[in-house]
């Protein structure tokens, strides 16, 4: 393709009223919102404390550190307009999680985050991990990051994962924000993030106005939200044999959308039932639903980078 030619890019034409907005990049305060929600969930509800409240509180601190790092992140190299055009032409993510050559500045982000964490009250194992990661060399950090971004969790330490992932999330959110929404087009695979090609952490069924009832998938890495039609498997895009599972006697705000064709599920958060919900936080806070879905033999169709599920992987 001749990149000199001025072709109108997605987003340059104003969407007519009634057209479904396809993409929404993470807001500048995405990690602040996440931290607040994690903290709120960690306190539990009127029935008592949350069963993993301590862990959610730790992650709330981590998300606060992410916000701080994002606010002070220096500019990092971005794909050239030619690279961007090439990616769009071939339906590839412009900032592919595995393909994009990471700038070392993400390790600076990690350092900022670890410093923030070191100053916070932590459990002994968490303190030890923070101290260890502070001393870990660049080559090893890059190796952890590569395995993590490849989704190769068997080789990723469950302790390291949330911290390293936190830094990578900040780095990707920043790059996506620098490029802006118009830089990204649709991918061939509707279930992968149009920005970085990652799997979603969860889906969000929106509420209010133009967006009422629309489902957006939320990227596990860069927190981008992209539209996907309801009642469709976010993994294999099948539209039949889709079932929804919820915890009995719950208000139905979180449902696992499962597909019998590819045997996966992904949680959907119905904002109509609870408008405070946030993808990463509420996904973790409903771990019981994952365990029960696991017992039915279903496999999760997306990662939560704040949670390594342990050694019993499929």
């Amino acid at each position, binding site marked *: 393709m001749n990149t000199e030619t001025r072709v109108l890019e997605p987003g340059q034409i104003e969407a007519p009223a*009634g057209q*479904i907005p396809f993409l929404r990049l993470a807001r500048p305060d995405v990690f602040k919102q996440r931290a607040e929600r994690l903290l709120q969930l960690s306190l539990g509800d009127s029935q008592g404390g949350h*069963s993993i409240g*301590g*862990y959610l509180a*730790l992650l709330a601190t981590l998300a606060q550190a992410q916000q701080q790092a994002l606010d002070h992140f220096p500019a990092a190299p971005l794909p050239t307009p030619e690279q961007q055009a090439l990616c769009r032409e071939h339906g590839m*993510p412009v900032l592919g999680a595995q393909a994009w050559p990471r700038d070392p500045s993400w390790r600076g982000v990690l350092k900022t985050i670890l410093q923030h964490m070191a100053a916070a009250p932590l*459990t002994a*194992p968490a303190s030890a*991990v923070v101290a260890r990661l502070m001393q870990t060399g660049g080559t090893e950090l890059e190796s952890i990051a590569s395995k993590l971004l490849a*989704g*190769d*969790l*068997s080789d990723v*330490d*469950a302790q390291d*994962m*949330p911290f390293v992932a936190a830094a990578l999330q900040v780095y990707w959110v920043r790059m996506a924000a620098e490029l802006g929404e118009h830089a990204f087009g649709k991918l*061939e*695979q509707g279930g992968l993030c149009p920005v970085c*090609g990652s799997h979603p952490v969860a889906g969000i069924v929106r509420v209010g106005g133009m967006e*009422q*009832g*629309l489902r957006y998938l939320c990227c596990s890495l860069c927190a981008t939200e992209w539209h996907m*039609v*309801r*009642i469709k498997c976010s993994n294999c895009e099948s539209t039949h044999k*889709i*079932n*929804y*599972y*919820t*915890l*009995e*006697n719950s208000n*139905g705000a979180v*449902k696992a959308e499962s597909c019998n064709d590819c045997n996966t599920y992904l949680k959907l958060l119905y904002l109509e039932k609870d408008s405070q919900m946030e993808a990463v936080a509420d996904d973790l806070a409903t*771990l*019981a*639903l994952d*365990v*029960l*879905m*696991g*017992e039915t*033999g*279903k*496999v*999760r*169709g*997306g*990662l939560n980078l*704040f*949670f390594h*599920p*342990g*050694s*019993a*992987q*499929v």
Partner: protein
Amino acid sequence: MQVTRRQFFKICASGLGSSSLAMLGFAPGEALAETRNFKLARTTETRNTCPYCSVGCGILIYGLGDKAKNVHTKVIHIEGDPDHPVNRGTLCPKGVGLLDFVQSPNRLKHPEYRAPGSKEWKRISWDEAFTRISKLMKEDRDKNFIDKNKDGVTVNRWVSTGFLAASASSNESGYITHKVVRSLGMLSFDNQARV
């Protein structure tokens, strides 16, 4: 694009002991105990088309119940399909009332017949209904079929009977309706059930 299956994993109770949760100093015991107190409830969401009029609005039907366990699935909610290009999640007052329509005790569930002059509806079998309809159609067609007009041109018309099909029909059932009705020579048919 390559999608690796490695991204997919099961979250198992047995794995939680080596998960990030446990490895960062939080005992998973309470979370596991809690899990045993919960059960899964199966619900369904089904895409369909409003049966009322020819606008053909998309709807989502929410159901409750586990088909596998031989429990009757109950429709609990119906709303406009937000992704549907025609109505984008909206519904007219009749569409909004669809749940009552589905659950109405007066809903027609089998063929009924009211004889001319009678006030009584009588339940009949599908076989009786089909036989009666086809018999009357044939009778009327034999009597009123026009094969040639006054100039002697072949027209093969049957104008004394009309046909009303369903507004929520798909393209395919529209095609079949057309084939059946037109091949009998019938000219009047419509898919407008609103009026």
